[in-house]
């Protein structure tokens, strides 16, 4: 228990988890305690895991194109159940879809080819932001 708890989640039916596993390991190496959910999680499953683990950050990976349906639902479930976890999103998210997702409460969106250092930097900023704002 050396750092904030993070959940990396594969939301929806997408089976590509190379990136999710890389990001999970990167957070672990940076000193965070990390849980990777495994594939095919529904928004309800991820929200439950976030509450059970008392996660401070949920990193969602999704490359299937279902983000506009599943991500807002996850955000709603987290909020309804009293979780203030920061939500980051990574995957194939077309530029046209990003503003609505950011407005709905996603803290940052990362695309394929993102450097792990920039994900870490965004995470630190987002986590600081919540603790300052709380």
């Amino acid at each position, binding site marked *: *228990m*050396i750092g904030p708890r993070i959940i990396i989640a*594969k939301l*929806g*039916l*997408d*089976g*590509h*988890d*190379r990136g999710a*596993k*890389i990001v*999970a*390991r*990167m*957070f*672990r190496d940076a000193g965070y*305690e*990390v*849980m*990777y*959910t*495994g*594939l*095919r*999680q*529904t928004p309800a499953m991820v929200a439950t*895991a976030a509450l059970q683990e008392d996660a401070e950050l949920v990193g969602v990976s999704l490359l*299937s*194109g*279902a*983000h*506009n*349906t*599943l991500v807002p639902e996850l955000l709603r479930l987290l909020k309804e159940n009293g979780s203030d976890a920061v939500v980051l999103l990574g995957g*194939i998210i*077309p*530029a*046209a879809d990003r503003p609505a997702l950011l407005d709905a409460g996603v803290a940052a969106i990362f*695309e*394929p*080819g993102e*450097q*792990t*250092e920039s994900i870490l930097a965004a995470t630190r900023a987002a986590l600081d932001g919540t603790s300052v704002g709380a």
Partner: protein
Amino acid sequence: MTVTPDDDFDPTANTSSGIPVPPWSGPADAKPGTYPYTRGIAEDLYRQDTWVMGLYSGYASPRETNLRIKSLLAAGQKGFSIALDLPTQSGLDSDDSKARGEVGRVGTPIDTVLDVESLLDGIDLSNVAQIRTTANAIGPLAVAWLVVLAERQGVDPNSFRVLLQNDVLKEYVARGTYIFPPAAGLRFSVDTVEYCRKQLPHWEPIEFCGYHIRDSGSNAVQEVGVALGNAIEYLDEAVRRGVSIDDLAPHTFMFLSAGLDIFEEVAKFRAARRLWSSLMRERYGVAPENCGLKIFSYTLGSPLTSAEPLNNAVRVAYEALSAVLGGAQTLATSSFDEALGLPSEEAVHLSLRTQQILAHETGVRRSTDPLGGSYHVEELTDELERRITVYVDNLHSMGGALAALESGWLSRDLSDAAYRMQLETERGVRPVVGVNVGADTTRARSEVRAFAIRDEGEGEQVARLEAARARRDEHAVATALAKLRAAAASGENTVPYVIDAVREIASVGEICGALAEVWGLEEAAAWHLS
């Protein structure tokens, strides 16, 4: 003096300066088309005809996918691969709660055989050189769709040339569209293989997949090693059922990636053929003439970047070159916009043109295994063969690829490799142009827009499923599903019962649901890292 053009000039037999070349070069004991097939499965691979060009297409709906496939056939594509959406590949109907937001996103939805009819409407399947599809956990459903479609059209399904992917084992460690636990998945795949050998002898019922292993971040050794390890699992099970491997082997393919490291890739294809032929000969006693490995290659997706997407067109062209220099039988190419989303019409046509330019303008078809005998490529071929042998032996010492999968070892081995590669890329040790080499943040971002899938598609597909359910005989569906459950429980081959259910317009979700009652469902396991 008058100069006349030579109408008999054959660019596949002569260089552009008119120098005639033989179909292959080298000493007599290095003849391609003979055991162990390192140099290729035929003496003359591409002169008579090119490799089969067939792209992976599917999105939104059966109807839209039909138009995309037709437009590529009109542009000279010889075969095609049907991209299925994730609910279909995962055995879920389009109205399943888990399918929400996913219908038609990464491929076409197929709920019932009526969707297959719309998908292939107006396409003369007997004239298509190769029909492929990404049915893995649902391998027998793909058989059933095409068999029942042929019945409805009044044609012989053996007149179709079908290559099924049907390799479910790799789904548990890469790609992820599994449904049942691995042992049941393996059985379902081999049911398909056994059924096809008996009833559909012209079909090719399985591809042993290394591509997805590679695309999940591993190297060429792991790619071919896992494909061979999984092949042994399927073939051993086929042997237990009395299938002759001598008869089956020539009807299988290996599915390998074509990456950017051109010479290593060429060596990989050569080593894979050599390893396959010795595996067939030594483990299964296959006759030498049946030991040639047919390769389907797809350009590797993971090197494509979202930064400066037009660069990807160049990457795909080099990847395609490596597959052809490596002697592949079928080639699919990606499109430059695939790091952004599904490919646009323009991008897929460029992808097909990339193959056509390679085939018709560059002279690569002239000589089989043109790099054979190169010190560099021969040395790499030998070294890859050695390393892959060690990898396969290691899987064997763990009890085989299925045991290595079930213990979680395989998944960890692949993800270790992916993480290492990521760190190497970030440190600039692995250069990527436009990312860590020559990245220019002052330039405007690319104008390439992601191809958008219509949001209304999901509701339309659910309506089609409801209409299909309304017109069928519910009693006949229930009877067919009950017989399928009984076959699954008894150990009988399930494929005839899947076909009966599909004929009665049972849906994908109903068929997989019936089987799950007997076999159970595979659940994802969480990893804790600290």
